[in-house]
């Protein structure tokens, strides 16, 4: 059931905004060089899509974000499981984690630039740092929340630590790991674009800065809009995947009740 009334109301604001923008620009009230206008932005979006530049930039941004997310995700899940399973380890490292975590990821942009130079690797490194901490925290708290009886079973069956993690801990902590990884994916995209805007000549962020510096306001807004669409689409897709892959988990839990 679609609620037409709500849908209509939701569309009022954006349409009004775009119409006003177009009209004021056409009437010459708003400056052309800095604001462009919706019809020109739409045309710039289509032509950038048609000649492939927009898709190539999107690919570059997503490549850096995905690589960084995958590396950080794998290491952080492993570390988070260990910290969650062995509280002494968590207590010992707590000060170091609390000291490193609040460093804003963007502060590492110059360092990464110094070490790797421009390009993919420096961007991936910053994304790794940004994604690592939230996934680590969410995973370790998820593991700490596992039913103690389950771990007892593992011990009673004399499973090795590796098998206990693989067979018992990971499945039981999967919902929180999934949430952590989804949060991490959002962070990865945001940080990748931010690195590109700040320094790295790569991807969508650089495309925007480049358009802005060559006074192509239409192209700049086209890419801003595109980043919004990509971010929104990615979020929806990840939610879908999470729901589908974890369906067994929730249904098993329902059945156990």
């Amino acid at each position: 059931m679609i609620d037409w009334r709500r849908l209509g109301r939701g569309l009022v604001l954006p349409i009004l905004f775009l119409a006003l923008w177009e009209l004021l620009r056409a009437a010459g009230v708003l400056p052309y060089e800095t604001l462009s206008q919706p019809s020109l932005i739409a045309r710039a979006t289509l032509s950038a899509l048609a000649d492939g530049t927009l898709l190539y930039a999107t690919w570059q941004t997503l490549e850096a974000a995905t690589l960084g997310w995958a590396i950080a995700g794998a290491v952080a899940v492993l570390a988070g499981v260990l910290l969650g399973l062995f509280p002494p380890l968590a207590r010992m490292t707590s000060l170091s984690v609390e000291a490193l975590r609040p460093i804003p990821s963007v502060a590492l942009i110059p360092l990464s630039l110094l070490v790797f130079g421009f390009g993919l690797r420096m961007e991936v490194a910053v994304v790794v740092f940004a994604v690592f901490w939230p996934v680590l925290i969410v995973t370790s708290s998820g593991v700490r929340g596992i039913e103690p009886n389950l771990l007892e079973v593992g011990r009673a069956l004399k499973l090795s630590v590796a098998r206990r993690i693989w067979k018992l801990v990971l499945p039981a902590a999967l919902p929180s790991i999934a949430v952590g990884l989804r949060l991490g994916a959002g962070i990865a995209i945001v940080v990748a674009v931010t690195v590109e805007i700040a320094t790295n000549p790569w991807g969508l962020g650089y495309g925007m800065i480049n358009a802005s510096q060559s006074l192509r306001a239409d192209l700049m807004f086209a890419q801003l809009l595109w980043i919004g669409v990509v971010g929104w689409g990615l979020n929806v897709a990840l939610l879908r995947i999470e729901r589908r892959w974890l369906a067994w988990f929730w249904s098993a839990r329902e059945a156990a009740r």
Partner: protein
Amino acid sequence: MNARRLWWSASSVLFALALIGLWQALADARIVSPAYFPSPARTFAVLSDQMQTGTLWSALGETCWRMLAGWFTASLLGVGLGAVIGLSPTARDFFEPTLEFMRPLPASAILPAAVLLLGLTSQMIIAVIAFGAIWPVLLNTIHGFRAVEPRLVEVARMLHLSRVERSVKIALPSALPDILAGVRVSLAISLILAVVAEMLSSQPGLGHNILVAARAFRSADLYAGVIVLGVLGYLTNAALERAETYWLRWRPAPSGE
């Protein structure tokens, strides 16, 4: 019990010190060129030098001023707008779809647009922070005002409170936890945006300093700057956490988690 806790905090300090020792040993071994990897001794020497000559404080002041000015504007606008939208279901129908689209946009993505409109100025940075940091406050405030306990609304009706009284005396306190959480996230975003915008616009401040240090291969200055940004991130977050517990002390401890 107390002795044990003391032992654990001692072990976490020792672990952190061991990491710094490892850093020193690696730097002394010169496996990596000191142009990328200065020793902690050199880094802290630079840091104390910057403190004595005052260059640290002036850069810190610039960055903090922009961060706080932008954050304050964002919080004020976010709470005001959020209260209006959250209290009225009609307003929610009109605003929410637009806000949902804006939410996943990287806050830094408006930087290129802001540079075009306002130039490479300090005001531009504050405007970018105000715009980029408003989302967590705005969305959390909307949520907080919407989720007022229905029984409290009934009480308000029984007492014949006016609309304004009802929002200030009933809705605001009940939305406060959400608002404060949003305000804290937005301060972290403000710091990130302040740093990125300084890098892009070459306005004096901590972010500009570390980028210049990296370009000149002054690695000790760079590491010192990263440490300062980490401390700043930690302190601002801790201060707001304190404020949160103080302002929410009237609330019973949250049950469950």
